[in-house]
């Protein structure tokens, strides 16, 4: 077996998420590819909680669909997660026998799981550790026993985790683990399902989530200042950055609100430092005025927006891709602002470094449109070679340019040299007001037109950045998929499955979601007669944006739904199959009137 999706749920006190963390750390250490997502009720502490862990010997693109293994410490809690923990006929269900539910009377409507085990989990914990609080450790033992998972690494991890609290606690947990493992051995699966061994050296891969990855990438890119305000699910960016950036001579300012956060970040950029802010939907709305200021003042700035269900508070802990309009368009005036979207924890690194490079090179704000799924899921990441990246810095004026400095000089590429306080001769007034080349205020219509043209022109090269697009499959394929953000991982899995089935389909995943690279899409669409833009939002915002810039073939439609209703690879595959059948029907000739 090379792929295993485990879902577990319990109450917060059961420590089910903590068990998931132990499992994914151990599995990553051993060399598996793994991915973990968490989901919680809205209680701050002690509510229901769940996690999904997917383990595999090959790269994992998404958290997976139906569970291979479902673990319920308590059925009420398990059921609250509905579609996030889907049980199917292939699922092995393990649950706490103390719940009193009979194995043939599980509260799962319309499914007959493949195998069901009612395990006295609490009882085993009490026997092993002297307290039923160690239920999560018993669960780890069960998983190790049944699926041959990372035994030694889990034990090592438990030791590392509990040793601070004393050897006795370590011993107690080891005992609980062993009892779980032993129970599994004594009650073997009908068809044994041990995981294949991973093929790499232990300890070579990384494990992190998208928020930490973005913060680390920002540090790597040379960002030295963060101004922001906490908001789920983006806060970890600020927290991580705050732990680290001081060591590099930088600072984090937790501000009084999002406006102050982006204001301080923009101030730092004006002063010559690379800087950033991060937020989520409601905060993005507050930041929009100063994003406009950054555009007209032509200052580099990176804004991370971790999307959650909206509008307003919406579904603050669930992923959605509904901020694209806001990211692309939330500005007054004629503004073009690049928006990049990572699709995984791994490429969050690339996208973040790229965002800083674009911001610096073109002296513009750049939005990184992450989403809760990418931001908060943990994922195994292959080692990233830092030598792959060039780090760009802003074009500062030369000594000659400083003798007669013109901050907004019209240049061939639209980018003018940018000075900062402390630089003699570079003195200018940055402003939200329209200005001439010397940065002096103006109300001239001619200058306004010219400056708008300059601000648009400098970003034109982005449209030709093929490296910001991932296009796979037969270039002539009539069937197409387009997808962005975390849901691109789901779409890619469906794409791969479809190709295996022999469907002639191609896939486009953009990192650059705005501005729309018209030529790249035009090329892509040239062979396409049918397809789907797959998005986790009610409206299908990328689909709609594409339609306003390029001729989207009539057979290409949005496949989208609101957040917290995860689209599964199987859903996309089913769509593709139907579309492919329709394509094979002879085209009806419509008489053309002239």
């Amino acid at each position, binding site marked *: 077996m090379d792929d295993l999706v485990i879902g577990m749920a319990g109450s917060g006190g059961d420590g089910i998420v903590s068990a998931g963390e132990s499992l994914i750390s151990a599995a990553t250490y051993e060399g598996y590819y793994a991915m973990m997502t968490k989901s919680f009720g809205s209680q701050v502490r002690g509510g229901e909680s769940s996690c999904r862990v997917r383990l595999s010997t090959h790269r994992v693109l998404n958290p997976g669909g139906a569970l291979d293994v479902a673990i319920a410490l308590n059925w009420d809690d398990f059921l609250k997660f509905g579609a996030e923990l889907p049980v199917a006929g292939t699922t092995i269900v393990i649950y706490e026998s103390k719940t009193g539910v009979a194995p043939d009377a599980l509260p799962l409507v319309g499914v007959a799981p493949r195998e069901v085990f009612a395990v006295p989990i609490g009882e085993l914990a009490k026997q092993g550790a002297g307290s039923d609080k160690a239920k999560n450790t018993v669960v780890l033992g069960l998983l190790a026993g049944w699926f041959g998972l990372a035994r030694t690494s889990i034990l090592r991890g438990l030791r590392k985790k509990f040793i601070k609290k004393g050897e006795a606690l370590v011993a107690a947990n080891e005992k609980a683990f062993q009892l779980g493992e032993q129970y599994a051995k004594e009650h073997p699966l009908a068809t044994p399902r041990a995981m294949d061994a991973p093929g790499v050296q232990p300890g070579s*891969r990384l494990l992190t989530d998208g928020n930490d990855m973005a913060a680390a990438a920002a540090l*790597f890119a040379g960002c030295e200042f963060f*101004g922001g305000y906490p908001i789920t699910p983006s806060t970890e960016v600020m927290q991580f950055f705050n732990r680290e950036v001081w060591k590099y*001579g930088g600072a984090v*300012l937790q501000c009084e609100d999002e406006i102050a956060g982006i204001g*301080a970040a923009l101030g730092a950029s004006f002063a010559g430092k690379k800087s950033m802010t991060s937020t989520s939907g409601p905060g993005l709305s507050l930041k929009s005025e100063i994003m406009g200021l950054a555009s007209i003042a032509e200052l580099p700035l990176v804004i991370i927006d971790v999307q959650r269900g909206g509008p307003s508070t919406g579904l603050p802990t669930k992923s959605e891709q509904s901020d694209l309009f806001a990211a692309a368009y939330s500005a007054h005036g004629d503004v073009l602002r690049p928006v990049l979207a990572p699709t995984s924890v791994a490429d969050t690194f690339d996208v973040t470094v790229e965002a800083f490079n674009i911001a610096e090179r073109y002296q513009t704000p750049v939005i990184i449109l992450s989403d809760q799924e990418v931001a908060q899921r943990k994922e195994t990441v292959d080692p990233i070679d830092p030598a792959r990246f060039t780090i760009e810095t802003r074009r500062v004026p030369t000594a000659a340019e400083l003798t007669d400095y013109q901050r907004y000089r019209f240049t061939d590429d639209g980018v003018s040299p940018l000075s900062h306080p*402390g630089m*003699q001769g570079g003195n200018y007034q940055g402003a939200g007001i329209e200005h001439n080349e010397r940065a002096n205020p103006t109300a001239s219509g001619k200058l306004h037109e010219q400056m708008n043209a300059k601000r648009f022109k400098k970003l034109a090269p982005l449209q030709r950045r093929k490296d910001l697009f991932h296009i796979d499959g037969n270039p002539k394929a009539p069937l197409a998929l387009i997808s962005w953000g975390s849901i691109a991982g789901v779409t890619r899995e469906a794409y791969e499955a479809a190709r295996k089935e022999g469907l002639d389909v191609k896939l486009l995943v953009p990192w650059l979601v705005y501005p729309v690279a018209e030529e790249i899409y035009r090329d892509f669409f040239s062979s396409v007669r049918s397809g789907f833009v797959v998005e986790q939002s009610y409206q299908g915002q990328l689909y709609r944006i594409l339609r306003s810039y390029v001729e989207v073939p009539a057979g290409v439609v949005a496949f989208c739904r609101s957040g917290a209703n995860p689209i599964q690879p199987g859903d996309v595959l089913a769509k593709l199959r139907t579309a492919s059948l329709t394509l094979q029907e002879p085209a009806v000739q419509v008489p053309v009137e002239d």
Partner: protein
Amino acid sequence: MPTSVAALAAYQSKDFKSDLKPIWCPGCGDFGVVQAIYRALAAIGRAPHDIAFVSGIGCSSRIPGYTTAYGFNSVHGRALPIAQGIKLANPDLLVLVASGDGDGFSIGGGHVPHAVRRNIDITYIVMDNQIYGLTKGQLSPTSPKGLKTVTSEYGSLEEPVNPLMYMLAYGAGFVGQGTPADMAGLADVIEQATRYPGFSFVNVQSPCVTFGEDDDQVKDHRANMKSLASLGHDPTDRLAAMGLAQGYGTDLHTGIFYKNPNPPPTFDAQMRVRQAELAPKALPRERILDMFVQR
């Protein structure tokens, strides 16, 4: 011409005056304020390129453009956060902030207590004309109760805020007031505020002659202002300062209300200490991702 004779001080007022011609209405109080700022900056003697001068939006917020410092005429109400970011990004800079009463105490009012409590070493100069100038005479948070404006046709029903009391109550280490009726005195307060190591605030009663209450405000100031020094006020006495600050709106006290005799360490100073302490723990940038390797 004699102007080219070698000067004694490193900088003169003219070194801080830009070529832009102010678009303020003739008679506006802000003309005197910018003169006082030139003078204070000349006395302090930092090079114009080492000064960042941030403002929001309003007639008053045009002021950075009339100086030769690096200016940032940002958006309405947000000068303080931007200035704080600048100072933290480069604490060697001298950072000044200018606002109007609407910019500073209405739309930007939420930023004020936080700027004060953070105690980042910046100087906040508010040109308080008790009216919205740039947008043509609407009610401002410092307009006196009963004031009739285009948005309070029958007289305002609200009490004004008292900027001096605000600042003292928030815990500002330096609170002063001045008026362009006494440009020299104003320059002096601004200079002292700028020299104060920490967040400092200067309220400038800077009349709007176009939409303000009456035409002779500066003359009235000249006649009625009382310097705090002449009243024998001890600027290290915060409670006494609060007592005098109550007079805002009726009395025109000029000079220093409060100056903390023992300035606490600023945010920026503490930041530098922390950066130095933690620097040895920095991984080389190309090894940052090692943090995530499972061992």
